[in-house]
Each structure stands twice: as structure tokens, then as C-alpha cells.
């Protein structure tokens, strides 16, 4: 295939699969993932690195794909939300988001799941402030973050979770009318 003028050849690994493509060097990784590779789970919320909806992992580091020109991912290994669940088996973070109401409208959810997963991979037993800091780059307008915090706590391995966490999480049924 003849190369369109100004485009460059790129090689990278996306969700474990080697990919070759041609793109303008300044195209955003976000657009290349979504439009060229049809990986539309990565979302655009702000286009300026503020909301985190476009979060992906590059070589194991979480980044905003709207701020990465595709020329800079030559040779890199990229993980998107599509690469989180394996063989129809949800990642424990994904399952926790479903169980705890961590996803509402869902548009921030792929980025938030990746941020949570990134946090837990680095710190399997985060405190509340660790969770808040770890997710502060991902904006959610629906949840007020509380269900997301609970999702992260629930995704911690049961045996290492803080006892305080556990106590909270199974506390009390819904209040019923007292009169």
C-alpha cells in the first residue's frame, strides 16, 4: 500500500498483539486507537489531559492517550480497556465496578478501571488517601467517586484488605422506615 505523504510507519504492541500501521506523526494515540484499530473503549472527554477518560497504559505506565503523539509509541507496548478482561473473564476490578456501582453512565469507566488497576498493581492494599490520589486524574461526574472507591476496595484481594474496609463494606442493610 502506498504511503500517504507525511505519514510514518509504526510498530507497536497493543493488548499483546503486534500492530503495524501508518499515521501522521502528530496524530493522537487516542485517535489511532479508536479510528485505526477500532478500539473505541478508550474515550475522549476533554482532549487536554484533564479528565482521564482516554487513559491507557504505555509500557506499564498510565498516560492520557490524548496527549501522546503516535510517533512516540514506536516500539511501545500499549494496554487499553479491551485488553483487561481475558477470555470473557472480567478482571476483578471490572467485576468490582459492576458489583459496587462504580460505573454509572460508563464514559469515564474504561479510564477509571485502568487507573484503579494501575493503582492496585502498584499498591495491592491502598489506603483511602492512596485511592483518592491514584484516581485524582480521572474525573467522574456521575458517582461522586464514592462507589468507585468502594469498587477499588472490593477489588483488593480479600485476605489483605484492611479490616476497617471489610467492616464497612458488609455493614448494615438498608434503613427501613421506622414509623
Amino acid at each position, binding site marked *: 500500500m502506498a504511503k500517504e505523504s507525511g505519514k510514518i510507519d509504526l510498530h507497536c504492541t497493543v493488548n499483546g498483539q503486534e500492530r503495524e500501521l501508518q499515521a501522521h506523526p502528530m496524530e493522537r494515540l487516542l485517535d489511532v486507537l479508536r479510528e485505526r484499530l477500532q478500539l473505541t473503549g478508550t474515550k475522549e472527554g476533554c*482532549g487536554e489531559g484533564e479528565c482521564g*477518560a482516554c487513559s491507557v497504559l504505555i509500557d506499564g505506565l498510565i498516560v492520557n492517550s490524548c496527549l501522546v503523539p503516535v510517533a512516540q509509541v514506536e516500539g511501545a507496548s500499549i494496554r487499553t480497556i479491551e485488553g483487561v478482561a481475558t477470555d470473557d473473564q472480567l478482571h476483578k476490578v471490572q467485576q468490582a465496578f459492576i458489583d459496587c456501582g462504580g460505573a*454509572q453512565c460508563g464514559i469515564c469507566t474504561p479510564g477509571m478501571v485502568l487507573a484503579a488497576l494501575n493503582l492496585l498493581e502498584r499498591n495491592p492494599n491502598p489506603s483511602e488517601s492512596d485511592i483518592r490520589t491514584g484516581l485524582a486524574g480521572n474525573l467522574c461526574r*456521575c458517582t461522586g467517586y*464514592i462507589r468507585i472507591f*468502594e469498587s477499588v476496595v472490593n477489588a483488593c484481594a480479600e485476605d489483605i484488605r484492611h479490616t476497617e474496609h471489610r467492616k464497612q463494606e458488609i455493614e448494615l442493610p438498608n434503613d427501613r422506615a421506622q414509623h
Partner: protein
Amino acid sequence: MEGEKAPIATSTVSYKHLKKAKAVEHLVGKSMPRKEGRKKVTGAALYIDDLTFPGMLYGVTVRNPAIRGVIKSINLGGDVPWDEVTTVTAKDIPGENYVALILNDQPYLADAKVNHAEEPILLLAHPDKYLVEKARQNVTVEIEDQPPVLSLEDSIARKEIVWGEDNVFKSFLVDKGNVDDVWSRADFIVEGEYSTGAQEQLYIENNGCIAIANQKDGVTVWGSMQCPYYVHKSLVKLFNLPEEKVRVIQTETGGGFGGKEEYPSLIAGHAALLALKSGRPVKIVYDRAEDMVATTKRHPSRTKHRTAVDKDGKLLAMEIDFDIDGGAYCTLSPVVLSRGTIHAAGPYFCPNVRIRSRALATNLPPHGAFRGFGAPQSIFALERHMDKVAHALGLGPDEFRRRNFIQTGQTTATNQVISEKVDWGHLLDRAFELSGYHEKRTRFARENPTASKKKGIGFASFMHGAGFTGSGEVYLQSVVGAEATREGRVQILAASTEIGQGTNTIFAQIAADALRVDFDLIDVSQPDTSTVPNSGPTVASRTCMIVGKLVESAVLGLKQTLVGCGLLNEAYSQVEFEHACRHYIDRFGPLKSLSKYQPPPNVLWDDDKYQGDAYGAYAWAVYVAEVTVDMLTYEAHVDDFVALQEVGRVINPVLAAGQIEGGVAQGVGFALFENVVWQNGRMANNQMTNYIMPTAADIPPIRVHFEETPYPYGPGGAKGIGELPMDGPAPAILNAIENATGISINHVPLMPESLMEELGPKSAGRAVGPS
């Protein structure tokens, strides 16, 4: 920066649902997992920008660079292959050039005159998304300026007449008793003035639509939206087509909060106009800057209160003037005003009430729906004012309210008799116990004088009516359908949209419970006007209480049909239900049931006098906020938040708690963070970097508690919930800030810059210095 290992003390929600519910177990009251949760957490859910069509063009909007004026010329310049670009102006519109809504005054594309900054003038489309943007930047529009009106004050003063004869879109008068007779005999008269700013909905998914249009088949639009039938209605007019030639399909919607109530009608029309002219599918998806600068925001408001009280602390009269800034076109302002007006006197009994309200025109971009819909504005004023009155009387804010809370059998401002059981004393006691209100109030009073970080605690007590106001639901005539398949699955057919709040899930719970079948057998249709009936818009906290009830009756209709023709007994198993569906469909064809809205008995509303039963039911709530004010930086932080509410039966505790928490977070933003900076009639800080919503680091623990008094006319006893949590945070937080600083501040957003001004010149720093 070692973080302390604190527990996440936030929730009162049970996770027992993690064990799979059995088929015939009651589902209402259980936290069933979100229906579409799996596709959302895997990234498989498809939003509008995730869709492409073969041959699709990208559309963009050329907007008014000035404010108010006359269009002199439109020039297509620059190094752009203009012959490849599809262009649409007002002249290309085949039908009516207005967004059909209430007054039909907003054009799809400005023709000759412009009335606000960023008003759409010209549409462009091209297959290359980069090139079409380049084309947009090479259009110059010349406007002959006319003087604009950019504030409520100037609109009221009629500095210019910019709309109609008097700049007034709509006014209401609510008159109960006779306030005029009271002033002379009142022991206390307390006045106050309060204001609220514009607020951006800031759904994380920007607005967008894709359209296909041609002469033969008509118009089909996919989009991110709350109200497919609003879009449908406006497209019918825009293209002058019969209703069946217009089809509107809601795609997965990444948040709305009111911001996708009326505005998508405009984008859908734009995409469809370009599609018609080009003969190709056209996608218009706004970027964040465009979405923020051009689309609707919460109406700014100003409220004046004059209140008469007797020596026992009983309300004698409330006179309230409530004005909102509607922007340049009417859009939904009359109904926003209506809700704000009716909520302006709150959950208090007062024998004499007069509320005068106006929605006024300015030359700002039209303000529109945003969660709460006028009520957060008037409730902010009222709940600040109640603290002020209490202070003037020398009573605690709680004691003054206790003496005036509305009780069952008493009347609201519109003379609606409260027939529900409501126990305000209990709600207040419980909220105070949960928040440690009294203990903290005492402790802060002791500690604050020597602290450079001052703490405060405050609360707001309020109500929120569910469903359309007054006779609105009767006019809407909403319909929900249910259809069974041969396999015994049940499809819910409604135009009510899932926008994150849990529509799909609660509809399935309600339906499964009513039919006593498995939750997983219920499917909720994608809203598509060609296949679902009009269950009304997804607004006004009506989806659960009103539409949910229709879901319940629609599926019961299926059951009745099966029972009626002898295929099913009154008591049946799931297997028997499945067999009955199969037999019915094999013998008679499709098994479908429609249910149409019937008002509860004895609900009467007088639209002319604005008297009567404004809402079928109210949710009642007490919210308590605890704050720290940093006297070095004038920043206020919310440390703890208790949200206690009575909302009827809670259908799904996890989803309901999520609604409350999300609403509280938006309320925290409304109170302390979210400031629309207006410059030259347009939002100057139209970036997420500069219009700051709360992050995960800013939100306090939000402790959500429900009281449940089943409402007989709601599905499973439920009332509405969606908007309620937007009402309480701002006044509770400002009341807490007054408790912390001793300064009464009557406007939001309260940015640190403004708090500094309010605190005065001597407020600086620590105890060192001139003080």
C-alpha cells in the same frame, strides 16, 4: 506522603446482592447489578463517537463571533477546497427554522440576526475531520453589533429590549392567604437577597449525533440524548415530514444531568441538514471547548426574601421574588421557572405566601435544564434565608425550622395538602445524630477563635417534587409497552433513556418483581422512536416513579392477558410463564401490552392560579455538611457530608446511593468550585482545566441514609430521587461556612476570591498581625 490507613466510611449499602438472587425473590429493594454494567466496564458499550458509517462526513458548526447583531456577510476563505465541503445555512432548511419546544423562538441556524455569542450560523461537512476543522477556521462572519444585555439586572431594567416586549419569557404568581395584611402585626421582619451562578452540566461524554437523511426515507438520527421524542418532535418540524419519516435512536449516553434534555434537538437537526444536503451520513460530535462554550448551563438566579415571623418563631408571611436568567431564547425556561417557583417556599407551613417569579431574556447562550431544574436555585435562597431568620430571632437554625416544618395535613405554598406521612422532627434528629451536629457545633465554637483553619457545620432541610409539575404528566400522556417473546423473555418498550442513573436496571427489577420472573429474563429496549412508545422525557425525577409505574402496569397487562385467556393461573412458576408465552404467541401472534399514564386520584392543579397539587409526591431530606475554611487561602473544604432522605421505597440501594452521592458531588461543585467566567457574553473558561469540577481528592465521605415510607402510587412504593441531591448541598455548605467564619454569604459559587472579599480586610492569616 504516607497516607493514613483510614476506612472508607461512606456507605450504608448492603452487598448481599453479590450472591445471586433467586428467581422469585422480591427484587425491589435489592441491589441488582447494572444491566449494561458488563459492556461499560469492558469498553464494549458504544457511544455516539464510537460509531461510524460508510461514507460518513464530519460536520462542524460555524458560530457567531459577536454577541447580538445583524449578519452582514459570511466569507469562505483560506486554502480550503471549498468545492468539496458541504455547506448549510438557514436558506437550506426545508421546514421550520426553529427548535420546536415551548415557544419555538430558537432558530436552528441564525438567519439575518444573531442573539447570543456562539449562535450557530453555518454548517460544514467533509470526509476529512481535520480538513473540515480547517475549513471552519477559514470562515469569517461579519456582524454589525447591536447592544446586548448580559445580566439579569440589565434585563430587568430593560436597558435594551432583547426579547418580546419586556424581556420576560414567563412569569408566575403564587398567592396564598394575604401577605399584605401581615407586615404590620409581625414581631420580626427579615429580608435577604441571594444569588446563584451558571453551572455547566459537564457530562464527560460531549454532545454528538449522527444523521442519515434523504427525500425518500426521511431522517434517522442516532445520538447522545435524554429525550428521543423531543428530538423527534423538532425534526418533524425542521424537515416538514410526517412523524413516521423521522426516526430517533438514543445511543449509550455518557451522562446528561439535563444538559442533554433539549440541546440534542439542535445538534440532531444540524447533522440531519448536512446529511440531507450531502446525501451522506454526517457525524457531529462537539469537542469539550465547543460543548462548554455553546451549550446550555444552569440558569443563574436571584431571589429576594421578605419574611414575617411572630414572637414564638412561627412563620406569618413569606414574600419571595425569584428571577432566573434564561439567556437569549426561551428554550425550557418557563418550566425551570415553574419548578423553582414551587420549591421556593420549601417544606414549611406558612399561612401567607406570595411568590412572584420571572424568567428573563439576556444575550447569553440559552440556559437550560440541569438536574434540579430551578429548585436548587430557589432552595439555596430559602435555606440560607431560614438560617438568617433564625439568627435574627435568636433561635438555633434547627429550632426555628422545627417550629415551622410542614406536617401531614398542612398546606404548601400552592395550597397542596400534604397527605403523605412526613415526620420532620425525626428526620432532623436522625441527621443530627448521624453527623454529630450538636456536639460539633459546640466544639467548633470553642476551638475556632484560636484556629487558622476554622470549622463549621450546617444543614439544609428541603423537599423535591417528583414528576412533571402540576398537570404536566396529564398532558404528557406517557405510554410504556411490554412485549413477551416465545421464549418467555419480556421486552420493556419505553423512550426513557439510560443515562447512567440506572433506568435499565430498575425497570427490569420492577418488571421482574411484578411478573415474579427472573431479572435476567427482562430486556429493556434501546430507545428508538420507531419501536418504542413515548414514555415522556427522561427528566424531572420521573423515570422511576412515573414511568416505572407504567412499566409495572404494562408487564402486569401481559400477565392479565395470559391469565384471561386461560394460559396461566394467578399463581405460576417461571416455567409456566414461559410456556404460556409460547402458547399464546403460537396461537394468537405477538403478545404485547401498553400502559398509559393515569394520574393518582384527587390530584388537582389549577394552571392559571398556580394552586393545587403541584406534584404527586415529594422526597424529603436533611443534608448536613461539615467544612473547614482555611483562613490563609480562603479555601473551603467539605470534610464530611450526611445525606438523609425519605424517598419512598428504594428500588435498588446501590444505584440509589450512587444517585445521591453523585448529586451531592455536583452540589459541592455548585457551591465551591464551578464558576462560569463570562467575558463578552461567552464562557471564557470553557476548558476542564479552568472550569474546575471536584476530583476524587475533593469529595468528602458522603454518608447516604434512606428512610422509606412507601408511596402507594409509585412502583413498589418508590418516589423520585434523581434531582433531590442537587438541592441540599449548596445551602448546607454555605450555612456551615457561616458557622465557621461568622460571615453570612448569600451567593454561590463561593470561590476563594469571593470568600476573601466577604471576610474583609482583617481576615488575613494567623493570629500574628494587626488583629
